[in-house]
């Protein structure tokens, strides 16, 4: 599978912007580095995808042919893996990923109201990102925090017994953090 073939099927968006070109170059370098670091491990694809998503916040479309080439897979195979797992995403997301547990234990103590509250307060449906790029709302099936249901996760932090007040306090904390130079789509920083 040649690179020419690749670019015919997936033409790169035309850009005259220097910043964009720089970003693309950075992305390519990052992707290459992650592939290099993991490609000799047995079953390297998931570790590579995790490394790229941790670093960039998503799996860029242009990373797919590069990964495929290095692992001797077809692009369809790599794409198939990325799209199979709920965790991997090919679109940039918000700075914070707010995951609301939708599984049974949480349902038993008001989880469905919490789901509705999250959607309503944020004005987002599942998988959507707020217009300011701060928050992406995702459903999750079980965080293993079932003895303290209902649960919400943001980055590495898991919150238990989340009622309306606790959820709103969380949003306050997330949206009033001082602005940093983190690019949109970067991995959500730990919330403490």
């Amino acid at each position, binding site marked *: 599978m040649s690179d020419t073939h690749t670019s015919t099927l997936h033409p790169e968006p035309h850009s005259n912007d220097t910043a964009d070109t720089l970003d693309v170059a950075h992305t390519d370098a990052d992707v290459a580095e992650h592939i290099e670091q993991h490609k000799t491990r047995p*079953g390297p694809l998931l570790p590579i995808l995790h490394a790229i998503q941790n670093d960039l916040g998503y799996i860029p479309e242009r990373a797919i042919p590069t990964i495929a080439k290095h692992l001797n897979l077809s692009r369809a195979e790599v794409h198939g893996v990325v799209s199979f797992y*709920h*965790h991997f995403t090919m679109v940039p997301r918000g700075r914070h990923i707010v995951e609301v547990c939708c599984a049974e*234990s*949480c349902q038993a103590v008001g989880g469905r109201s919490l789901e509705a509250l999250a959607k309503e307060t944020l004005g987002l449906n599942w998988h959507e990102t707020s217009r300011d790029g701060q928050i992406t709302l995702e459903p999750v099936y079980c965080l*293993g925090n079932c*003895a303290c249901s209902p649960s919400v996760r943001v980055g590495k932090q*898991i919150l238990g017994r989340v009622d309306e007040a606790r959820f709103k306090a969380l949003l306050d904390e997330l949206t009033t953090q001082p602005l940093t130079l983190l690019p949109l789509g970067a991995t959500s920083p730990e919330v403490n």
Partner: protein
Amino acid sequence: MSNHTNTRLYIPRDSSALSMGAEQVASAFIQALGSYAESEPPVQIVRNGSRGLYWLEPMIEVDTPQGRVAYGPVAAADVESLVAQGVFSGDTGHPLYLGPTDDIPFLKKQQRLTFARAGVVDPVNLEDYCATDGYQGLTRALTMSAQALVDEVKTSGLRGRGGAAFPTGIKWQTVLDAPASQKYIVCNADEGDSGTFADRLQMEADPFGLIEGMTIAGLAVGATQGYIYLREEYPHAHEILDEAIRIAESNGYLGDNILGSGQCFYLEVRLGAKAYICGEETALLESLEGKRGMVRAKPPIPALEGLFGKPTVVNNVLSLSTVAIILAKGADYYKGFGMGRSLGTMPFQLAGNLKYTGLVELAFGVSLSELLYDFAGGSRSGRPLRAVQVGGPLGTYLPESQWDVAMDYEAMAALGAVLGHGGIVAFDDRVDMAEQARFSMAFCVAESCGKCTPCRIGSTRGVEVIDRIRANKDRENNLELLTQLCETMVDGSLCAMGGMTPFPVQSALKHFANDFTQ
């Protein structure tokens, strides 16, 4: 580190304790200790795992001459008054004082074997681990032949704790007998069932127990490489396991010369990526190989052709952790617990709408109602309990008339129910069982790997049919259609995902029929 003049203050680093504010409590104590008079005896903060008394988290403990005493649930705002009243000398007058930890009834009534160290030790302190009988199993295992190790596990009667309850020793025998240049030990730590958290608790509280169990498994079947397939949803467990593996490696418990025996075993954690189906062992293996988590047809069984086509032991976290105990204490000791063909202990996990939630490790055979009322104290909401789902999202809903059932594999099977991984999710009388049935189908739509038609298409049609029933569209015929659809999925699916998704639906139809006709 282990200066005995220090007072030890235990603040858990378990995910659930953190979810209730344990980190803030720790920060408040560190701050309080900063202004603590220098004349006072020094206080050492230990970040332990959880005891599993989750409704009391964050539960802190203090060493006293009379043993450890507990306080909980502690909020950061309570720290000032705790320190002022003398928490470091085990003050008994504070409103959050719970008494000696081991005397708390919820814990005292348990039989902790697999979870003996949970919440007691610092999870990444190897000295703590060895001081509490850790690595005795491995030390003994290194003096035994591979066959003797497999025999010991067979004799113990241990059955897979992941849910399928297959005898662990028999699986190991198959792998031992399979000639191959490379074999693997894979730990299934993809604990996706709602209502379960025992694996997570164990990995966060006692990671060396799992590492030791996997090392013993490697010696028993001749495998030199192990993988812990951990779900992405467990970031704290990931951190703790990685740290424990590094410590075990640097102290000669893992690597190319285990305790100077000349035997080798390597271990690493691999992260899943949010796919419930990867808890099914063949989908898990596909995922470890870097593929979509598609279920494989069996045979061949993984014990003969598993990871990368090589003979592979796939065991749950608790099965492997328990192996370390069986080797340390002997098979006969272990099988002294339990009843019939369900030997040993089972960690039951009390979740959902219950007052006292947490982990209860007991010999098999305790009744469901004892767990719901004697341990959990009934509903958290104060309303009557109505339905209890046992065994995760593929487990049946049990109505009150069935709560006397003994919690063992055979008694549950006789009811058409499953024990699974021991998760118990209780609902009060506000639950709409038709909505729960719909969720079971919808969950299968989201999580089916798509390989077989009954699961992939059946679940989608299931959601549609239940929607029509709930909207009272041609209800009689659609109820009949749902019954047939469930039978088709049970009989025709490749794995437990499609094969068991109908269980909660069928039980809701059978025991809570009114909810479908309102």
